[in-house]
């Protein structure tokens, strides 16, 4: 509850332009949850269902941060990460997966953070704030 109050206060501060976050996940429920939660935190949220869609939206939406699921049909998160990094060296990218096993994959090192999915989004949100330099 404390976090919520804190988020709300940021959202209404209006001092800085609102940060844009691209949420990439094949699960619609997860996209919905993240969008709701992050918008409540005061971010502008755009969603993509897979790697190709994410790449398309990257240039249109111009996000300040990408949350990238790993296991997806079509182009998966790790492939998308490589492609994005070819142009966007500085863009903060959080790999967000249901499992911890990808931690050993060297590709994941190209991301800025690795968050294991959890119903409790506290960790996820604090990671985003840290990467956006908000905390």
């Amino acid at each position: 509850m404390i976090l919520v109050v804190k988020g709300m206060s940021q959202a209404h501060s209006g001092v800085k332009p609102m940060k844009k976050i691209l949420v990439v996940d094949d699960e619609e429920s997860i996209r919905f949850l993240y969008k709701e939660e992050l918008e409540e935190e005061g971010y502008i949220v755009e969603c993509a269902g897979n790697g190709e869609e994410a790449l398309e939206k990257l240039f249109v939406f111009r996000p300040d941060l990408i949350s990238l699921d790993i296991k997806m049909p079509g182009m998966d998160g790790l492939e998308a990460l490589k492609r994005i990094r070819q142009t966007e060296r500085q863009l903060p990218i959080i790999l967000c997966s249901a499992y911890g096993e990808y931690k050993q994959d060297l590709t994941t090192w190209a991301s800025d953070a690795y968050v294991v999915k959890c119903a409790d989004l506290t960790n996820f949100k604090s990671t985003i704030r840290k990467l956006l330099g908000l905390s």
Partner: protein
Amino acid sequence: MPGPLHPCDLLKSILQLSNSTIPIDVKLDQMLQSISGAFQSDQCLFLTPEKIDKNGFLSRVVSEKKPLWVEDGPSFPKENVPLEEAELLCPTFACIPLYDETSLQGILYIGYSKHTRFSPEETDLLLLIGEVMGGVIRNDDLHLKAEETISELTALHEMGRAVTFTLKLENLFELIVTTGLKILKAKGGVLRVEDPRTGELKVKCSLGDYHQNPLDEKMARRVFYTRTPLSFNHSGEEKPVFSVLCAPFLSKGKAFGTLAFYDRDSDSSKFNEKDLQRLSMMANQMSCAIENALTHYETSRMAQEHEKRVKELSTLWELNKTLLTTVNFERTLHLTLTAITIGEGLKFNRAMLFLVNEKDRVLEGTIAVGPDSAEEAGKIWDSLSLRKGTPSDLITQLPPEDHSTLNSIVKGIQIPLAQEHCILSRTVLEGRPFNTQLPQSKEGELQTPCERGCHLGSEVGCYVGEHLSRNPKVYSFATVPLIGKGKVIGVILVDNLYNQNPITEEDIHFLSMFANQAGLAIENASLYRNLEEVHQELKETQTFLIHLEKMVALGEMSTTIAHEIKNPLTSIGGFARRLDRTVPEGSQEKKYSETIIKEVSRLERILNDLLNYTRDESLVFKELDLRDILEESLSMVTEEIHSGRIQLVKEFGEEIPKIIGDSHQLKQIFFNLINNACQAMKEKGTLFVRIYSFSKNGSSYVKVEVEDSGKGVDPENLHNIFNPFYSTKESSLGLGLPMVHRIITSHRGQIEVDNHPGKGVNFIITLPAREGREK
């Protein structure tokens, strides 16, 4: 002619004498006295043919076969008269030669010291008397001959009876000697027969007195080798007078024995030629019979021996058949000893088996079979005699007997092979059997060769000494080596404590033969046992592998399921939290949403456990100080410790060697153990965390103990605690301890559980210290 002569009286007395039964010498003597009395002569003699000198005048009388009448003695030519005959040259004398059909019997001589004349009546009378005397001598000769013939015939008859009476050697020998004694009227007799193996003459039968001296032996040998009868009359001054007759037994020109007789029964007389002839005749007659009896004896002895061999072999075969009924090691040992003790088998009272432990160089008492007391022995033998069947049937029917005192005593015996005075060790070291008989001492106790006072020079003997149920006069026992594949693998000890039968060399021989067979069987059973053990190990490994495979499959499946559930669960939990924020505090809906959040959290925790367990993480092995790891693990559960509910006691050693390991995994397992400990102590408690190092066999190890003061593990569950999915806790998948086990094993470590139900449990982890590479 002086005095009146009464021819009728003289003839009457001569005739009476001639018909009387008195011995011939006396008879002749009395006749001469009668003649001398009647003729009133000064000398009246009977001269035997042996006494007649060839050159004298008597020999002339003999050769002329005419009586010599000399009335004018002094004119008788005295030249060339031998000295003995000179006495006979009286003034008047007569010599009347006595003949039977063929030979001279002697000369009747009558002499007068005064000159006188022989009237025609007198000469006729003397001639007549000469005829009568000749007849008397002839009769006596005939009588003697007849008697001799009868006695020889009797002897032969008795011998003949002896031969037909028996074929039994001892009886035959005795009969021959007895008969010989009777015929020869001897004091003692000896019968000797050549031993066909050694060639020596052996006394087979001796009766009465005989001279057991070297001369006797010598004489028998001489008779034996010369194959001629011999008589020997000793009449020395120092040694007592004795007389010996000896004749060989001959068969096909070869001597095979001797028969000798000693000293005539009547006082001074010695054996004569006749006796020797009779003995020779007897020996010749008997040779054939003795030879037959000897052959018969030899044949029956061989037959007996063969029969015995056949019996032995068939027993051996039976016993071997028994041994072949099993390859079980213990059963083989038991059967072996039973075969040794059973009446149909080797018939020993008790048998004990000791096996060589090559590694420790000791003999170990393995098994024993035998009754505990004489009463029990009697009962067993009685019941066995009622059973029917072949030995192999009997032995295999007998139940394994494991409760005898002897068995349990023997099982506890260990004798170092270095203990060389012990007969058991010697049997192994020298690889040969020992047959020992301990005699009773004067005090009534058994004499013992061992300074420790035991009867066998080992604990067995001490035992035997203490447990002698009766006080036997002697105690016999034997040991034989048990040989398997060319080496001594053990010793069998047998005794006849209860019936005290002597143990013969043949018994030992038979036992050794059986022991060789049994040794092979035991060796085989032992190999089979090893094989079975290896097989069992393989089976266990296989079971374990199958189990492992199952676990892997289960792991893969659960990972897949966990993955599929994880995403929906995240959404459910996330939205529940969103809902929760909108629901007013204290409302009924608040409780609902909180319940959803709580349960989702639990599900997520379980899924994480599962994924952590099954995940095949590549490990990062680094040099670590376990104290740091423990501190970090402890910091994760500080809440319970800070609240004061649980008191933490840290016992950290100062110099703990570093280990090589994955810090993440190790942190995880110590956290699991500490967390379990905290949960085990529901109310208050003390948590001990210890770390120390130790060395073993030149390697260093680090030990970590996590001990709680909870209830401990239910002994029923103890063997399951490291099995995955076995949990006694409601909110756990039961992967905590299995994970600990898996990780410790992958770190080449060990985990032990020191469980005290009701008091707590101590998990002890041992990890190898880092090898001293710095050096």
